[in-house]
């Protein structure tokens, strides 16, 4: 029987990874497509560690809440898997193509789901960076 989705998509759809919320997240990214109706909310927890004498920020935890079709659920699950534990700068390089490939492909009409997943991760990281600058500014302001 011809399948609608690849085995990998169905595996992630049946058993999505990293679903839920993070309390006190470092950053949150919301993406949605009003036409197709998919909405996803990504939460990240960023921590720092020393690597070769340098401080490296990495994604310690990532979670997502998804309202959407099979592809939307699978891509958000895969996106979180791909960035979990990765340095923030590497996570920013995530592409929709990489997400789709990791899922053994998506039907053409569902490719936009992988774009949403990419944007969701990136939005969460940008939100984290914004919060960080704001905090730094607040710190210097109190110092002065």
């Amino acid at each position, binding site marked *: 029987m011809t399948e609608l989705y690849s085995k990998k998509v169905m595996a992630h759809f049946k058993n999505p990874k990293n679903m*839920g919320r993070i309390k006190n997240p470092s950053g949150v990214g919301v993406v949605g497509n009003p*036409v197709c*109706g998919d909405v996803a909310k990504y939460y990240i927890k960023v921590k720092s560690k020393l690597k070769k004498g340098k401080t490296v920020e990495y994604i310690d935890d990532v979670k997502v809440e*998804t309202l959407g*079709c099979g592809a*939307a659920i699978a891509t958000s699950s895969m996106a979180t898997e791909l960035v979990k534990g990765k340095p923030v700068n590497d996570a920013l390089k995530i592409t929709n193509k990489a997400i789709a490939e990791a899922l053994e492909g998506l039907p053409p009409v*569902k490719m936009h789901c992988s774009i949403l997943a990419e944007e969701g991760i990136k939005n969460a990281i940008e939100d984290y960076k914004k919060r960080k600058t704001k905090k730094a500014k607040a710190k210097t302001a109190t110092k002065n």
Partner: protein
Amino acid sequence: MAKIYLDYAATAPIRPEINKLVKSLLSQKFGNPSSIHSFGREVRELIDNARENLAKFLNCTSQEIIFTSGGTEANNLAIKGVVSGFKDKIDLPHIITTKIEHHSVLHVCQSLEKSRKTEVTYLDVDKNGLIDSSEVKKAIKPNTILISIMYANNEVGTIEPIRQIGKMIEKLNRRREQIIYFHTDAIQAGHYLKCDTKYLHVDLLTISGHKLGSLKGAGALFVKKNTPLAPQIIGGAHEYNLRAGTENTLGIITLGEAVKFANNIKEVKKIQKLRNYLEKKILKDIPSVEPNGHLIKRLPNITNLNFKYVEGESILLNLDLKGIAVSTGSACTSGSLEPSHVIMAMHECPKRAHGSIRFSLGWKTTKKNIDYVIKTLPKIIKRLRKISPFGKKEY
């Protein structure tokens, strides 16, 4: 794994009586009904019988029935046929239809409109999917030649006041210079509602075989005597010169057989009882579910439910994994990424369309089937809502 089919509005399983008939026809009756010899004549007789059965069902004459390749072709023929039948008699013909028609009516009207040959009014419906017959009357212009309104909607099952509109048009026609013809798409209604064309006061009516438990690839258009209709497929004298092409003999003969099972009160009541049971249980066991469509003026076999905070395709896929077949108005399954035009016309809310599931029952549905759905569905909805960013406070 259980295999439960609740998508009768898409197509119905073949009835055993039809199955038996097909087998006997396949092995013996292969003749071309246009042939003069005995091989042709015996098939011609069977087609004539089918036409008579259908004529009885529609309360019309055999000459008023045109067999087509299905409901879509019949709807195309009705609309394009009447418009081109009026050619040269009117500069810019006007059609009135509704926003909730099947695409085989809507897209035909849109394409005629695009070619600037026709003016079209698309009527709104209320939040239950009902057409207001006074709105139909208001939309009528001096150049109106055709009104096409479905008998019952395929997504939500709402039944439109066809008889009331038909009588209104008939009354208006007595005083009008330009006669208005009235078409109804009875594809979904066929099995469940009275399709007496005189009772309904219609000039054209579409019926489809496979929704009645017969074969795919055969349908019919009732065309009242003296309705101007130009053929859309030409190249032969078949179907009273209105639809050329060698007849789909198997499809037509089985369609003629299948109408015998339509409007069977006992069966209809049984299906309605099961539908009500399914709907009641879901509404009781699952929070935040809203029915779409009119709750009384509705086909007895359809319930269309909106599950808040979840998306239709993910419900459908999960049910499919459990062997249950349903359908959704969600954009994600349409291929075009557009949410259901029917639910959008009723609610103007894409969210409502995205979370909607249509359960359509039929002749083979059992209480055991429904019990299995009732047992399976709440777990699926709960799981999907757990991963959804919305509706958390309600749990």
